[in-house]
């Protein structure tokens, strides 16, 4: 029996572990190793160069610019996306007109809203990016022609072509495609909050804003924190949107982000070693970010 057990365990683990080891673990380990070399990726010859790649990173203006954009996204994206998600979810679950037997209820049609808001989440990011690439088109795109229709045609921003606007356009697309997920996520969390809490608050004369800040948000805090980490990791990516929508780093590198910079260094500039150093920098930023969120977000756990 014992013998059979270990053979069974080994038999069930060996294939998944092998695939995982070859395609996930080993590339990660190699990436860190290559970041200390001058490997081009084109030839098999390379030398250890110690911290040279990291030194170059430090002096690389474009790296700092890309990092700056990522940090801006890291600040704006979760704030806007989670904010909208919380607001909509509250409306859909608590914000409705009170009915006879329930202390709280969502607005009418909340089930329908939840389905529709989720649409962008199931679409490929490639589809979303292409769609908005056309929508932002300054001449025939949906957005400028909408401005025409409501009489603001004189504005006609050159959305993606304007260095001051391009990054905001990218941000908007990322918000657009993610809000629905958080509406559903927060709705699930809110529906788990006991109704008596709301009843008690209402008896004490609390209005909706107070209920939100005193009851819903504190009890939902864990979920919000998880969402914050998810959204932050999303903000550190942005590769597909930038590559597809902008066809490159944007006018004057205005939408350059770390992931896209890494991609061009590795696959068009033949600087694989330097690219992996960029990847390590990205990894460090990710981990610092997750650490900060976990630390700042730690609150006394509310049991209910």
């Amino acid at each position, binding site marked *: 029996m014992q013998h059979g057990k270990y053979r*069974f*365990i080994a038999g*069930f*683990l060996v*294939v*998944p572990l092998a695939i*995982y080891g070859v*395609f*996930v*673990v080993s*590339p990660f380990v190699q*990436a860190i190793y290559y970041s200390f070399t001058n490997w081009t990726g084109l030839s098999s010859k390379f030398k250890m160069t110690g911290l040279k790649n990291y030194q170059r990173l430090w002096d690389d203006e474009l790296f700092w610019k890309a990092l700056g954009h990522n940090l801006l996204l890291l600040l704006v994206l979760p704030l806007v996306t989670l*904010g909208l998600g919380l*607001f*909509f979810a509250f*409306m859909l679950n608590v914000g409705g007109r009170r009915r006879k037997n329930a202390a709280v209820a969502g*607005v*009418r049609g909340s089930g329908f809203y939840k389905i*529709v*808001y*989720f*649409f962008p989440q*199931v679409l*490929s*990011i*490639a*589809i979303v990016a*292409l769609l*908005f*690439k*056309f929508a932002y088109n300054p001449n025939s*795109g949906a957005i400028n*022609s*909408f401005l025409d229709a409501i009489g603001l045609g004189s504005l006609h921003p050159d959305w993606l072509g304007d260095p001051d606007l391009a990054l905001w356009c990218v*941000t*908007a697309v990322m918000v*657009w495609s993610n809000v*629905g997920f958080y509406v*559903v*996520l927060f709705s*699930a969390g809110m529906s788990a909050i006991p109704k008596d809490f709301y009843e008690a608050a*209402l*008896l004490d*004369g609390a209005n*909706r*804003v107070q209920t*939100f800040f005193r009851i819903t948000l504190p009890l939902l805090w864990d979920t919000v924190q*998880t969402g914050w980490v998810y959204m932050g*990791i999303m903000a550190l990516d942005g590769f*597909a949107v930038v590559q597809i929508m902008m066809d490159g780093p944007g006018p004057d590198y205005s939408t350059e982000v770390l*992931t896209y910079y*890494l*991609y061009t260094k*590795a*696959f068009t500039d033949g600087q694989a070693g330097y*690219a992996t150093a960029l*990847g*390590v920098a*990205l990894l460090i930023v*990710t981990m610092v970010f997750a650490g900060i969120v976990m630390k700042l977000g730690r609150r006394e756990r509310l049991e209910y």
Partner: protein
Amino acid sequence: MTVQAEPSDRPDAPAPAAPPEKRARGVGGEREGGVLNVFSHGVLVIWGLMVTLPLLWAVMSAFKTDKEIFSSPWSLPKSPDFGAWSRAWSQAHMSEYFLNSIVVVAGSLFGTMLLGAMAAYVLARFDFPGNRFVYYLFVGGMSFPVILALVPLFFVMKNMALLNTYHGLILVYIAYSLPFTVFFLTGFFRTLPTSVAEAALIDGASHTRTFFQVMLPMAKPGLISVGIFNFLGQWNQYLLPAVLNVGDDDKKLLPQGLVALAASQRYKGDWSGLFAGLVIAMLPVLAAYIVFQRQVQSGLTAGALK
């Protein structure tokens, strides 16, 4: 887009609509905030429009002539033109991209579910040296940015002659789906009662047979949740094929093929065909989502909350 403008009126905007005197009479409060309801419905409708209008715009444009797309982007097509659809489907190779995506996703979804369930089952229900280590090795993969591994991965694939092949992509998709799948299913297998499995073992079934005939059927709800999650992720994957599957134009997957199509349109200029391609790529997932929306939503949120 007015997205940036909205957060400012998010948390505090409802406040003016609920003046203090409301509170005094508002305990029973059937009528609390008639204004507030108008406001909240307004905001909800606006976001609903912001989500659906771009999609409708794409559908509408697919039925127009190129001239109409440029001259009147928001008006309905004068006479619906189906030509763009057949151009996109056959001449622009959308049918091939579609088939490629089906092949790769079918293979990788099956592999992910089978291998993920096997590993998770062993990790959840057997005590052996290294159990924790293997578990954290898998789960740790969830927190690293894929792009960091991409450069070495490209050369690993190249050395194994797996670049630009379907089976190579399938293996990579499986590998990168395993962390979450193992994590989710390990938790799920732990919650299943042990008595049934023990009874099967006492009756003389082997461990393997117990797994396939008893435990796997019992784990169906969990398998469905994580299966939907993986399906959406793999069907919509863009980064991995964009780097690892660039050999042959006909071998592109759907999202990739669509982007290539858009890039080539700059010279050909078949805009309605492009919109038709976009809609062809959108429709199946949207349709599947509308049919299975309950499972999709609960599957994705369960994944995030665990």
